[in-house]
């Protein structure tokens, strides 16, 4: 594998990959050129859609639906869009599924690599900035339509708060105070979040709002998958607090939806 070299290449795995394995590197401009500007070809690439995050009392809730589409076809019903990136942060992805998952994997290794080499954790700000640089290097691919637009959320151990970062295709990084949603159903999800968000929500309360936002997005947007009671497929939710990243189990999500649907039926 990698040759042991005597001059130090630094503590970033992303940079190490770029210098040692340029062929594996995301966003190579020649790969982007090789992709013709062919709309039909691009439609055959699975795209992931609605993702969101909102703050609550102890940290932040991050959530994503499970559908991936190829043009007008559903290509995947069970895709995961929310990934734990380290002990106190997680990423949700929207855009071209392949590059998104690849970038997530690279980002996970990046954080672990830094921690092991330096013997210390990156700050929340440092992690968010590194992700921004990684998205920027994907720009040539993004120009061809293979965009990666994540939401990065985590618990800032220094400031003792949950934090949410959103990104644009060019790697621009913006911090959101309370909540954010993006992807094809993002606008609808955001409308629900705006309507229901309050400061100082409980973990359960914030989870319920996140799931309701996904539900509303799925009602209005064909590319967003709502709860699938028949197959037992539910949106992924993670709660991040000082204690770490906690998966909300499918059964709990199912219960929330059952209650919600019963209430909607009555109303």
């Amino acid at each position, binding site marked *: 594998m990698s040759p*042991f070299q005597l001059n130090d*290449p630094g503590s970033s795995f992303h940079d190490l990959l770029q210098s040692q394995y340029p062929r594996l590197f995301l966003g190579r401009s020649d790969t982007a050129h090789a992709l013709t500007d062919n709309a039909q070809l691009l439609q055959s690439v699975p795209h992931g859609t609605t993702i969101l995050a909102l703050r609550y009392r102890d940290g932040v809730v991050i959530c994503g639906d499970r559908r991936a589409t190829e043009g007008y076809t559903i290509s995947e019903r069970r895709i995961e869009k929310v990934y734990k990136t380290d002990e106190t942060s997680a990423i949700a992805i929207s855009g071209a599924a392949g590059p998104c998952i690849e970038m997530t994997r690279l980002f996970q290794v990046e954080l*672990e690599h830094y921690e092991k080499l330096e*013997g210390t954790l990156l700050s929340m700000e440092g992690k968010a900035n590194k992700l921004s640089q990684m998205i920027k290097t994907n720009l040539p691919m993004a120009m061809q339509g293979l965009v990666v637009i994540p939401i990065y959320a985590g618990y800032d151990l220094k400031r003792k708060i949950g934090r949410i970062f959103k990104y644009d295709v060019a790697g621009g990084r913006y911090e959101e105070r309370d909540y954010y949603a993006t992807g094809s159903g993002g606008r609808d999800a955001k409308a629900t979040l705006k309507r229901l968000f309050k400061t100082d929500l409980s973990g359960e309360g914030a989870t319920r709002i996140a799931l309701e936002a996904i539900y509303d997005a799925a009602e209005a947007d064909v590319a967003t998958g709502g709860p699938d009671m028949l197959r037992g497929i539910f949106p992924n939710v993670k709660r991040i607090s000082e204690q770490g990243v906690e998966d909300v189990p499918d059964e709990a999500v199912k219960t929330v939806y059952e209650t919600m649907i019963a209430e909607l039926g009555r109303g």
Partner: protein
Amino acid sequence: MSMPYYVSPEQMMQDKAEYARKGISRGRSTIAMEYEAGILLFADNASTLYKISEIYDRIAFAGAGKYSEFEHLRKAGIRHADMTGYVYSREDVTARSLANAYSQTIGSVFSQEVKPLEIEILVVEVGERREENGIYRIQFDGSIHDERSFAVVGGNSEALNEALKTRYALSPLKGALQLCREVLAEGDDRKNGRGTFEAAVLDRTQKGRQFRRLDAATLETYFK
């Protein structure tokens, strides 16, 4: 015209080996020891510069001798492991492959460079079962040893090795920690106060990354 003076290869290697050995024995020792739930790494280290480090999910590193030199190797090992795990899969990162890479690098420095590395390192891997554990000891000339139960590098390693041979028995973590502390204290005429040790475990009962440091407060509870 000046004549280059001749040194026989044997003499040169001997000189280098002697130089490296001297450097390594000046430092303090580090022990790797199997216990019931995994492998313990234990070093006599009063400084905040670590001798023990995580490499990957099940793999750890410990160095003895010159800090700058084994620190360099430690970083190279992490890069090697992370790159392998990224290109293939996390399961494909093994201590044996890493130990071989170390052996090659250290060996070529020994034969090609004027100054050999004054280091001795351990690469350990905890397996699902005890039989699958791996403890590799790599010396300054690149020679590699596949150890069982325990291994000692640096300082007065031969004496410690002898002491452990008669006293080692597989035990829970508490027992292993106490034995390490005892033999280190006996093998050293400098007085060791509590809290001057550096310890970490590879714990197979832990999920995901199995490396865990034991800080001074945790060690204290075990030494009670």
